[in-house]
């Protein structure tokens, strides 16, 4: 079991040392995953809300599909995006493969169904309560969506944080579309996978500890800012 104390020591040491390589990797991880979550949320929040409030033929199917897409395996998402961005693929000319942009796209695809499904659930409950009133006011679909998202913002946060968790912890997709190229597309999780395959479990675990610490910091920040902003008027 000395691997665990070893790992804690490695983590402490890495943190104390603040090696530029580590900082680079951490910053890239954050940049990629936060961008992916923001992008996914911008699309998934309105879409999830729309599906929640608008009855249309086939909605049940869409809901099930949205839930099912939470099971998209990262490796498959990685492969599909790899093929699309590949030189011989339809978007090859963009030259995005093996860049952080490709990683953002991949994580965005993975995170989108999670935020959309959880948003749908949350907005659905709120909509049950607000529906008649909003219709009484003659609110249009977009006005309904913004009202529901705004009033549900504190609850929607957990779904967004779940999406962030999926993104920052994910390795299968980013390693395929990013290539884990040193100084270019290497992030926390791909480094952890690499150290594991090297058999350097202490380093892998140490990096894992740092990743969780970063997640704690991000969550604390989001909950503190989001919480204090919403407590006033709930």
């Amino acid at each position, binding site marked *: 079991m000395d691997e665990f104390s070893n790992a804690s020591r490695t983590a402490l040491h890495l943190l104390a040392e603040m090696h530029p390589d580590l900082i680079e990797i951490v910053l890239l991880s954050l940049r990629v995953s936060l961008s992916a979550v923001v992008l996914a949320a911008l699309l998934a929040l309105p879409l999830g809300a729309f599906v929640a409030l608008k009855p249309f033929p086939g909605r049940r199917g869409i809901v099930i599909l949205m839930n099912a897409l939470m099971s998209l395996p990262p490796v498959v998402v990685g492969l599909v995006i790899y093929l699309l961005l590949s030189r011989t693929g339809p978007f090859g000319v963009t030259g995005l493969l093996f860049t952080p942009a490709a990683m953002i796209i991949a994580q965005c695809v993975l995170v989108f169904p999670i935020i959309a499904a959880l948003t749908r659930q949350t907005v659905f409950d709120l909509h049950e309560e*607000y529906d008649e009133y909003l*219709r009484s006011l003659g609110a249009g679909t977009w006005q309904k969506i913004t*009202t529901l998202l705004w009033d549900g913002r504190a609850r929607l946060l957990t779904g967004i944080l779940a999406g962030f968790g999926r993104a920052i912890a994910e390795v299968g997709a980013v390693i395929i579309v990013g290539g884990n190229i040193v100084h270019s597309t290497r992030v926390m999780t791909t480094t952890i996978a690499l150290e594991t395959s090297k058999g350097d479990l202490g380093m892998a675990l140490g990096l894992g500890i740092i990743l969780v610490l970063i997640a704690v910091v991000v969550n604390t920040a989001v909950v503190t800012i989001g919480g204090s902003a919403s407590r*006033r008027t709930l």
Partner: protein
Amino acid sequence: MRLQHDMLPLVVSHVSYRVDGKAIIEEVSFAINDPGLTVLLGPNGAGKSSLLKLCHGLLPPSSGSIRWGDADARTARQKQAMVFQRPVLLRRSAAENIDHALKLRGASAAERAGVIEESLAWAGLGDVANMPARKLSGGEQQSLTIARAWALNPEVLLLDEPTANLDPSATRRVENLIRSFAATGRKIIMATHNIAQARRLADEVLFMNHGRLLEHAPAERFMGGPSNPLAARFIAGELVE
């Protein structure tokens, strides 16, 4: 005063409303030609709230039709406001609740500020303008929903038990509102259990039971002695089955 009113007449013809095969409103037909206050009376579960929502275009009739002047119920809604039996308040402050409603009806920011202050003051809620609306007391919440509807300056006001949780003076205030509303030639339809209140305010009465319209009469005649025996027992406070 009888202003020309493009919302009237309200014509409800052969309207039924069913949920899962259960008839909640059954074959209701009536026409309202005049402005002023129409009161909906009837025992609990008679279908008063459902009928109000049908008239407001919130529920689609299973059969039959509803027209306000030349418009169908959903279109007419734009010039109406409804106060629900159970207050629906957004998770925002009292003032923001009114602001939101005004915004949705297209009022400019300048207009809104004035109207918000005025309507909160009217409802005696000036002190709690910035409180989360859902933390207000039962009566304050109900006052707020009425103030919010009033702020929209609608041509038709639909009120579902608006004074149920109000103290006597707030009740009087709402009754005054109803009177001055009616005086400008607008239309109010109100469901209430307060028979004394109906007696004080109503121009005409619709009496319902079990989803059916049993009597439609001018208030004076109805209060003097309804032709329907159930209605007679009802206003005497007896059990109606």
